[in-house]
């Protein structure tokens, strides 16, 4: 630290003196070192808690193993098992695909709501807040609440449907093969809808109003403007929704776990719950590992595909110029 009395000219010589001694490493090396230093802590976390476990799963998927038992090489046994012998795996895969409908459904609803609250109407901030409110809720709590709402004897939904005269006998939504998955999907949509809405809303607000004005002058009516201006320019936001939706579908584990635990039968079992059960209730960690690897590959493919559909380059449409 300089003393207060020091003068600017002294300082200049100081600066020059400082310049005289060349830095130890070249600028390029220092830059690289700096970048990796910044990345390292985060990468370490991912390495430890994602990459290593994935590798562990890959190894396990070619083995026989349970806690306490020695590990043995199994070749493709586990993969053959899931491909040819485990009908439930395919059912669960189908359920997962259906459950993924949460993403498009939520996106469509969120888009509609975003368009509504993007208007200059009074109270739009209140609407936005209300619609987002379920997102921060703990998923386990959401599951508890919805299980209660769906209850056939005293649940609010059955009560409402009955008092409106829509049904005569209560429906045990979560115990029914016909309704259980849909019921869980509805709860999931309810929770994530607001999050998507906010993402889309911000995307909407980033579209320069001049584009709409130009389109109005060009003769495009409201629906033309939506399809030809709004939607294409929202692609990056929609892509973000899909990615977040995929990640959120992992947390749906908690939802299923509390609402139905996969039942009735395997009607609401998803890959993630099925893997968990295989590992921890059946002690089939090796088999679970194989399914995990399959799931990883499928989801990665899904993400890459949406990326491609969103126009590649992570769907970047630079509106700014």
């Amino acid at each position: 630290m300089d003393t207060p009395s020091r003068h600017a000219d002294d300082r200049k010589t100081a600066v020059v003196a400082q310049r005289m001694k060349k830095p130890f490493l070249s600028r390029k090396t220092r830059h690289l070192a700096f970048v990796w230093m910044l990345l390292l802590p985060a990468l370490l976390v991912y390495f430890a808690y994602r990459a290593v476990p994935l590798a562990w799963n890959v190894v396990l998927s070619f083995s026989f193993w349970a806690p306490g038992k020695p590990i043995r090489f199994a070749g493709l046994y586990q993969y053959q098992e899931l491909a040819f012998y485990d009908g439930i795996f395919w059912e669960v895969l189908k359920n997962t695909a259906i459950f993924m409908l949460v993403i498009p459904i939520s996106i469509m609803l969120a888009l509609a709501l975003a368009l509504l609250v993007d208007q200059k109407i009074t109270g739009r901030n209140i609407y936005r807040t209300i619609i987002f409110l379920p997102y921060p809720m703990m998923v386990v709590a959401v599951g508890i609440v919805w299980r209660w709402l769906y209850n056939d004897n005293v649940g609010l939904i059955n009560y409402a449907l009955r008092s409106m005269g829509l049904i005569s006998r209560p429906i045990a939504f979560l115990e029914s093969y016909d309704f259980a998955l849909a019921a869980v999907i509805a709860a999931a949509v309810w929770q994530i809808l607001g999050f998507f809405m906010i993402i889309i809303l911000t995307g909407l607000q980033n579209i320069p109003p001049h584009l709409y004005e130009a389109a109005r002058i060009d003769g495009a009516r409201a629906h033309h403007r939506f399809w030809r201006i709004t939607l294409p320019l929202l692609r990056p936001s929609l892509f973000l929704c899909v990615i977040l939706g995929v990640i959120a579908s992992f947390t749906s584990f908690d939802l299923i776990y509390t609402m139905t635990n996969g039942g009735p039968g395997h009607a609401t079992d998803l890959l993630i719950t099925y893997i968990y059960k295989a590992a921890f209730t059946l002690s089939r960690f090796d088999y679970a590992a194989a399914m995990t690897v399959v799931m990883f590959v499928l989801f990665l493919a899904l993400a890459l595909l949406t990326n491609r559909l969103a126009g590649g380059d992570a769907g970047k449409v630079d509106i700014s110029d």
Partner: protein
Amino acid sequence: MATVEFSSLVKKYGPLEVVHSIDLAIRDGEFVVLVGPSGCGKSTCLRMLAGLEEISGGKILIDGQIVNEIEPRDRNIAMVFQDYALYPHMSVYENMAFSLQYRGFNKKEIKTRVAAAATTLGLTDLLDRRPKQLSGGQRQRVAMGRAIVRDPQVFLFDEPLSNLDAKLRGSMRIEIKKLHRRLGVTTVYVTHDQVEAMTLADRVVVMNNGRIEQVGTPEQVYHHPETLFVASFIGSPTMNLVPAEHDGTLLRLNDGSVLIRQPENKAAQPGAKMFGVRPEDVTVAEGPPPEGHSEVEVVVDVIEALGADTLVFATVAGSPFAARVPPATRLQPGASARLRFPNDKTHLFDADTGKALA
């Protein structure tokens, strides 16, 4: 092509009135430039004409028909925006074809029209590009192309050149002018750049604070500004404006020195005035002043040699005073000099009302 008329046009944003009862009649095929400082309401007027902004009072007529309640798409106008407002996700071709698709043209017609417009504007090679892949000038041209393919009744431009650099601005200006001459479409052009106004307009509308200050040909607004505002706004470097006192016979500067002996019977009344003379009418005095010329003693601040000519920035009685002189001048910064101007090129304004005194 069509006439355009503003009649007692008013625009309010909530309680705030930003356009105060404007009247203006634009002739068929005329090129009218609205010019004025930022925030004076130019864009607002243009956008009301386009139908993008609701009209708070008065009316707008296109081709004699009131359009207050008519949708933008049904007004048959085309507009070029300052930021071009090109659709970023569409190619140049699609951008230009966009409006035609909503006007019942078939594919072939669209192709022909876009091709024609592209040829006119030299865009033929760029039709497949995205706006992002274009330079500023090219984007500007696409925006114009999008406007002309439609063959509209009225063209609207909102500062179409202000995102371009000086050189491009100059050449695009000429292109716009040529285009207007060829198409002959009624055009309303908004800018805050007085050079554009002067060079493009058939008539210039000078606006200030939501009001029209003067309407006239470039010649009129330049040589016969009706208000102090117009005088100071039009011309670059701006007109030298110096506070002066008229004592009935003489026009004196603040420091008491005499500015003009015979103020050409402008302003019979004595009182506070603003005296004006354009820099290009000012020369460096040599020898005794000829008949009908006046002179001031100044201190030179800065000399700017522009090549073609040289600007001398000086101070007289505390006010800046500039002269545009031929490149070869002997004046030096810090020195004092005598500057001369012909009396008949001077202007006099009432210091309170800002009105020109004829």
